[in-house]
């Protein structure tokens, strides 16, 4: 039996997609992206408290709805398609998975419900200078201090760092890398907003200077690769949603725009490129979906997660570029919406590792 979405999942997508598009017209994206915070608290509240989306992948005893990676993938795809601005990626996906994978049962029950209902905005601070999740690149120092710890070091590219109440931070002790939770308002925590190319995804650089922290789970007990895989798969699904938005937008324009007395979409030179783009997007979707199903099945998802990330980010970049091209001059203006997705695409290409990085990671995971 091959993977395909169930009728319920299809219906979930339909409803959700309408909701997202309704809540995130380009005008909303444009006004939110100009703000420091970058999202609409009311929409976020609807997303979490009313729709229960932020806890889709979290267990019911932690405030979640007990679905899994496939349903999360649907949310991510529709969110990426609508370019809905929210701390979903940071809080629900990144911090949510990190706590779910690493925390003790008590910690999960304490921390996850707030993430699920949206009352806590959390984020995950792993990367430093290199921007990579490699163990060696994590140099932030965690020092035992009484029952708790203090953290010192700097994290870069922290998604929604400026919006987070709760920081999940990777730090190093003698036992290796562990995760810690830090209250964002604590002394010793300094957050600088980064100048992000993609203004719809806020980034921060955060300094920790003997900042008080609690250990998540046990020392050295974090499975970074597992968290990374889950995040990558959600992210890949977000990207294929973005790619689809670009194809839809270009198709809509090509059907309306008349040049030389014909719709430009009737020119075979364009039609064939549209077809090639659709093929690439469908294959990237197939990979992103299958990776989610694989994760849902509880199998090691390393190879497929990296495959999905590499494929999705390349197709998103390509789709965004083609969408500009098919719009012609207007596609390069600020007024046209294409650049909003284009910047998300360019940014997504390198976030969490380049396509080349992930192809290599995929081969190694396959024993090749």
């Amino acid at each position, binding site marked *: 039996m091959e993977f*395909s979405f169930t009728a319920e999942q299809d219906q979930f997508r339909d409803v959700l997609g309408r909701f997202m598009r309704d809540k995130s017209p380009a005008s909303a994206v444009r006004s939110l992206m100009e703000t420091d915070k970058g999202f609409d608290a009311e929409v976020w509240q609807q997303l979490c408290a009313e729709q229960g989306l932020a806890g889709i992948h979290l267990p019911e005893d932690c405030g979640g709805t007990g679905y899994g990676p496939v349903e999360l993938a649907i949310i991510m795809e529709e969110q990426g398609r609508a370019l809905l601005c929210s701390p979903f990626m940071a809080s629900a996906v990144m911090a949510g998975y990190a706590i779910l994978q690493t925390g003790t049962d008590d910690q999960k029950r304490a921390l996850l419900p707030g993430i699920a209902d949206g009352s806590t905005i959390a984020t995950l601070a792993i990367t430093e200078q290199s921007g990579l999740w490699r163990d060696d690149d994590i140099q932030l120092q965690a020092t035992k201090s009484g029952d708790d710890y203090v953290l010192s070091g700097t994290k870069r590219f922290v998604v929604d760092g400026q919006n987070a109440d709760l920081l999940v931070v990777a730090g190093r002790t003698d036992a290796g890398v562990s995760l810690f939770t830090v209250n964002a308002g604590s002394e010793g925590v300094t957050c600088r907003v980064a100048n992000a190319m993609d203004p719809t995804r806020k980034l921060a650089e955060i300094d920790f200077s003997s900042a008080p922290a609690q250990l998540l789970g046990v020392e050295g007990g974090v499975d970074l690769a597992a968290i990374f895989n889950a995040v990558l798969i959600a992210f890949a699904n977000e990207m294929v949603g973005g790619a689809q938005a670009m194809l839809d937008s270009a198709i809509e324009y090509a059907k309306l725009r008349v040049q030389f007395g014909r719709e430009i979409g009737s020119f075979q030179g364009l*039609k064939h490129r*549209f077809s090639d783009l659709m093929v690439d997007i469908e294959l990237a*979707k*197939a*990979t992103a979906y299958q990776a989610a199903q694989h994760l849902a099945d509880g199998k090691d998802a390393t190879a497929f997660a990296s495959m999905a990330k590499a*494929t999705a980010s390349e197709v998103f970049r390509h789709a965004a570029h083609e969408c500009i091209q098919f719009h012609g001059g207007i596609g390069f203006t600020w007024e046209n919406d294409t650049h909003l997705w284009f910047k998300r695409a360019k940014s997504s290409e390198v976030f969490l590792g380049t396509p080349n990085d992930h*192809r290599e990671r995929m*081969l190694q995971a396959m024993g090749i």
Partner: protein
Amino acid sequence: MDINIDAIRAEVRTWLADNWDPNLTLVEWRTKLVDTGWGMPEWPEDYFGKDMPPVAVSAIAQEFAEAGAIGVMKSGPRMLAAVTLLAHGNDQQKRRFLRRILTGEDAWCQLFSEPGSGSDLAGSTTRADANGDDLANGNGWKVNGQKVWTTSAHHADYGILLARTDWDVPKHQGLSFFVIDMHQPGVEVRQLRQMNGHASFNEVFFTDAVVPGHFQVGELGQGWQTAMTTLAYERRAVAGNRDAKEDKGRNGTIYGEYREEQAIANEPYTWYPQRAGRVDLVVERARETGKISDPAIRQEIAKLLTMHQSTQWFAGRLSELQKAGKARGPEGSITKLAASNVARLASDVHTAITGIDAMLTGDQSPHDGVIAEILVSVPAVSIAGGTDEIQRNIIAERLLGLPKEPRFDTGPFKDVRRN
């Protein structure tokens, strides 16, 4: 309709236990299958079947496989003829032709493509003209023209033929559909050698070849609609029949006959795996040549494996959608186009991995010639069964809803420009 699969399984098991005998000849055994309907259970009871739904058909096939029982003859182009005749033939035609197709006694070929009409199949110019004055008296037709890309025509007893009977109407309306007897003086079959040295196809030349009136299938001028049935089946079956299991371990008269039959039927397809690029060999080959440790080649290998894997996943999901009735139809063009991309990249990767030895062919090429055969066979995959360009048109117009190309071939066919 409620069906009880377990009951059907029990019934077929019992029937097989009573009837299956590896020491029968193929024709003897298949005659039993045809008479009882167990050979084509999805077909109507009136015509050698049992009117069973797909789920039962799968169960029956499993029971046959478990018993090691051979089925009716389905290989090669004969099933294209069978499904078309079943849908559009008259009672007499179905009775006459279908039985001997299923028993394997008659081989068939498909006579649609022409040198002048490859992508534009409806532009056929092979003509069928009334033979004598009075068609109503069954004087029939005489056929002149040329067909090409005909698989197994040199083994065929009959062909299904698309020919033009009216030149004064638009091209799709002037075609009619016939059965033609391949054993007659007006039919000349030549083998057509490909650039990879194989000769999987034929050219067929008609010079006043005779078709009796009762060999006309469907209404006059409705040939295109009839041919659509053939083509739809062909598209679905394209990757199906190729990998009939070999029953090497089994003993009995019938297995010997069956192996021989299959060898002939599969002969045109031996290079098809190479045409698809042999992705399965890539990692093994990279290990053999040491290129597995070349980071630039590794990137290409990863891209290839990704493209290949994702194509399979897409095809898998599509087949689930089709089963659930949720597919729109033309999505198969995505799979086909993706398969072309896979094959082309695989050829490039095999070349890079093989390096200088890619200059050799035959037994001097690695893997006993397989590598060379990949390199010279892959160009076929983006042409055969509908070119990539045609797939792109289908995707653009039928999946993405883009406006159609302006048309220049809608008038009476005699006025349409053609080669």
